[in-house]
Each structure stands twice: as structure tokens, then as C-alpha cells.
């Protein structure tokens, strides 16, 4: 059976986007390149009002902030340098922040990517390269996670869930600052938290991890 290509307009119900005061304002920090659309859509899916911006005032007035990350550590730190005091001030306010992939790595004290480079130092620890072995680098694809510490952002997420990773460097931090661990040749921190509990980072991409990832983004919006 052939279906018409065009459906008469009256049959299509298109809900109008609306913003009201109950919606959480989430700012995705814009410091360069890459695919920010998926994070944005994932957060909108969770009911947030999402703004992509590098304006310090927007960041400070947000209910929640996302530090995304694509590319190399050194370049990313250079790009975010001018926002450093804004980020510090925001974090000190106690409001939630989520770093994703390189965004998580940037939260650490140092990284050895591209020569030892200082990070934002929001969580104590270092970023190291996967050692040379039989395993492929980047660690790319869906791997299972082990939840080592409860946190609201992982409410309803089960041990053994699959999430999507793509990275050549990994985070090495304390057990106290680790929320999720993952095994790839070595056991590394796949999700971390600062001492105060408001800054969380994931090495995996929740915006690319199907329903599991959307649930995590929803939990983040609920924290804000």
C-alpha cells in the first residue's frame, strides 16, 4: 500500500514551545567546537530551558551549568581560561554543574594530554593516557558501569547499564570523589563528584547513551 507523502496539515498536532518560570534554566558553556545540539536536545527532552552561551552573566544566573567537551585538553583549557573566575564563582554558589567527557577531565587538577597542563582543579586528581596494550585507544563504544557511590544524578540507574564512551585519556581520582567506575584494561573513574557534591562529571556521553543517558540528564535537571 502506498501512503501519501504529504499528510494534510490539520492532522498534525505541533505543540508550541513555551517557556515559563517553572522551567530550569540550564546553560551549556560554549567555548568552541563540536556537537552541542545533542546535549541541548537531551536537556530539552528533560524539560529544561537550554541556553548555549559564554556570557558570564548568563552562566552565573543559571540553575544548572553543563561543561561540554570535545577536542584536546590544552586547547579547551585555553578557550575556557577567560571564564575561569566565572566558573569558580558559580561552583562556590553550590548550584549544580555537570562536565561531560573532556568537560569532566577539565575539572581535575592536571592532565598529561599535550604536555602536563593544569585543569580547573574542582576535583583533586589527574588525567592520564591509557597505557599501550592490546586494547584499542580511543576507548570507543558502549561499556558497562559500576556504581560505587550513590548520588542523585544516578537515581534509578542500575549497575551494569551500558553507556557510550569515546576517549583516550582517563581520570584518576580518589574513591571519595568517584561515583562510577568502569573497566577498560584498568579500572577508571567514569563519573566523579567534588567534595561539596554539586559538581559532577561523566567520562561517558549521556547525550549519546540512549535512554540511560536521557535519564541521567533528567536527574541532573531535577537537581537544579
Amino acid at each position, binding site marked *: *500500500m502506498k*501512503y501519501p*507523502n504529504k499528510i494534510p496539515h490539520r492532522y498534525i498536532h505541533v505543540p508550541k514551545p513555551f517557556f515559563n518560570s517553572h522551567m530550569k534554566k540550564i546553560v551549556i558553556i560554549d567555548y568552541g*567546537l*563540536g*556537537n552541542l*545540539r*545533542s546535549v541541548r*536536545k*537531551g536537556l530539552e527532552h528533560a524539560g529544561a530551558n537550554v541556553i548555549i552561551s559564554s556570557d558570564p552573566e548568563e552562566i552565573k544566573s543559571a540553575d544548572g551549568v553543563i561543561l561540554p567537551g*570535545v*577536542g*584536546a585538553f590544552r586547547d579547551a583549557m585555553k578557550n575556557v581560561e577567560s571564564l575561569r573566575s566565572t566558573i569558580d564563582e558559580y561552583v562556590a554558589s553550590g548550584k549544580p554543574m555537570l562536565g561531560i567527557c*573532556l568537560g569532566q577531565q577539565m575539572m581535575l587538577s592536571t592532565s598529561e594530554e599535550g604536555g602536563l597542563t593544569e585543569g580547573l582543579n574542582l576535583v583533586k586528581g589527574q588525567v592520564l593516557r591509557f597505557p*599501550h596494550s592490546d586494547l*584499542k*585507544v*580511543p*576507548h*570507543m*563504544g*558502549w*561499556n*558497562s558501569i559500576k556504581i560505587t557511590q550513590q548520588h542523585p544524578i544516578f537515581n534509578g540507574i542500575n549497575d551494569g547499564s*551500558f553507556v*557510550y*564512551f*569515546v*576517549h*583516550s585519556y582517563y581520570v584518576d581520582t580518589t574513591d571519595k570523589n568517584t561515583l562510577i567506575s568502569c*573497566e*577498560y584494561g584498568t579500572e577508571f573513574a567514569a563519573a566523579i563528584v567534588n567534595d561539596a557534591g554539586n559538581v559532577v562529571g561523566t567520562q561517558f*556521553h549521556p*547525550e*549519546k*547513551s*540512549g*535512554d540511560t*543517558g*536521557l535519564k541521567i540528564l533528567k536527574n541532573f535537571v531535577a537537581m537544579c
Partner: protein
Amino acid sequence: MLTKRIIPCLDVTLDEEGGTVVKGIEFVDLRKAGDPVELAKRYNEQGADELVFLDITASHEGRGTMVKVIERTANEVFIPLTVGGGINSIEDIRQILRAGADKVSINTAAVKNPDLIKESSDIFGAQCIVTAIDCRRNLDVENNPNKTILELEDGTPAWYEVVIYGGRQPTGIDAVQWAKKVEELGSGEILLTSMDKDGTYDGFDIPITRKLSEELEIPIIASGGVGNPEHMYEGFTKGKADAALAASIFHFGEYTVNDVKEYLKEKNIPVRL
């Protein structure tokens, strides 16, 4: 444990009315059988680990339409999306990533201008630069002393020659050497297609897949020749591939992604189910 990835590939082109369609689809129960976004959603529901869109229009008009398809897909499907076909420049890559793709696959343009790999990898990160290598078996080993000679299934020696423009033009380049070079230049992954196997439903080209998987540090996606789930199994075991790409077996509705994964799981291949 890191799982092996199953990746459906969608060849996207334009129909007479300028709408986007996926070539070779035979699902009868989709409202618009050829709509790439509907298909992306379907494969996502079936458990696809990633999706590849191949723009086969290779026209300016096609590119604009493709960007809209990527945007619509990224709005609704939350798994990694790779886009390839006719990508020639940093600007092309920027446009496609901005539309919501996670990786781009570069083929002919990389052979003609290897610096494009290095430059794009430096700017966007190695993780989003996939180099697509199309190759064909060349049995003339005597006159090609500097090529990497592999043993085919029946013991015949051969080297694999890189071909471009969809397989129409041989380049004289050794596929193994080229793969090592693109890794050095900063490619994050290789999408390997053997033209001898593509469209045969006969299984992956194991000798070259295995060779690249063993020689390189970056992941290898095997492509070309899948006719059944057992071929996927062979690609992962004999071919040591990290991911397997297929089109027809999924498009014809003969197997779902989930069918393939159930089969692999039974044979102890780690998959996401």
C-alpha cells in the same frame, strides 16, 4: 566490558521531489518507508549502537538537505551518528558536526589531501574523524615489491589497493600502509570496506580486516559483504574488528539489529542488549 558495536548504514539520497530517501529499504510497515529519520528511530529501538548516514547525492543541494536530516535525527535519536559522503573541507566538517553529527567519515578527500585528516583532527578532535578506506584485492604481487602482501583464504598472495570515487578509481596505494598513515595523522577510527566483498552477502573480507585490526591502535569498523549474523561473528573473531557495519540485511527486514545481537551473545561476543 567494552561491547562490539553493530552499526546500520543508511545511504541517503534525494527523490524526484527533492525529499530525502534511504536507498534499498524494503520495510512495508513504515508510514514513509524511505524517511531517514524514521529509520534512524527504528534502528535505535532495535538496539543499534551507532548509525552511519552516507550522503550519496554528492551535490550542493543534497548537502543542504542532508544537514536538515542530521538536525532532525539528532533531535530525536540519542546514539552516536556518523555522516559521510562528499566531505572535502574543514567547513564541510564544521557544518555537519554543528548540525548534530558526532563523527564525519572522510574518504576520497583524505586520499587526495591527507592534511585534511591532520587539520580536522587537530581542530575537532581525533574522536570525530573517521577515515573510510575502500580497497580492492590486487593479485599482481610480483611487480609490487613494496606492498604489504597478505594471504587470501585459499592461500593466494595479494595486496590490497586503495580505491577512490566509490571504487571506480585505483590509486596504487597500499591499504595497510595508508591505514597506518591515517592513524598517525590523527584519525580516530577506520571504516574499512573491501570492494571485492561489498554487495556479495558473502561475509567480510577477513584477511585485510584482521591485518588492520592487529596492526593499528585505533578501532576498525568492518564493512562490506554481510549476509547473515554469522558473518558478523566471523568479522569479530577471525577479523578481530571492533565494530561491524551493514546495510542490506537490516534494510530488507530479514534480521533486526536485536536478532544479530542475540545471536552474537549466544556465541559469547560481548554486545549491548
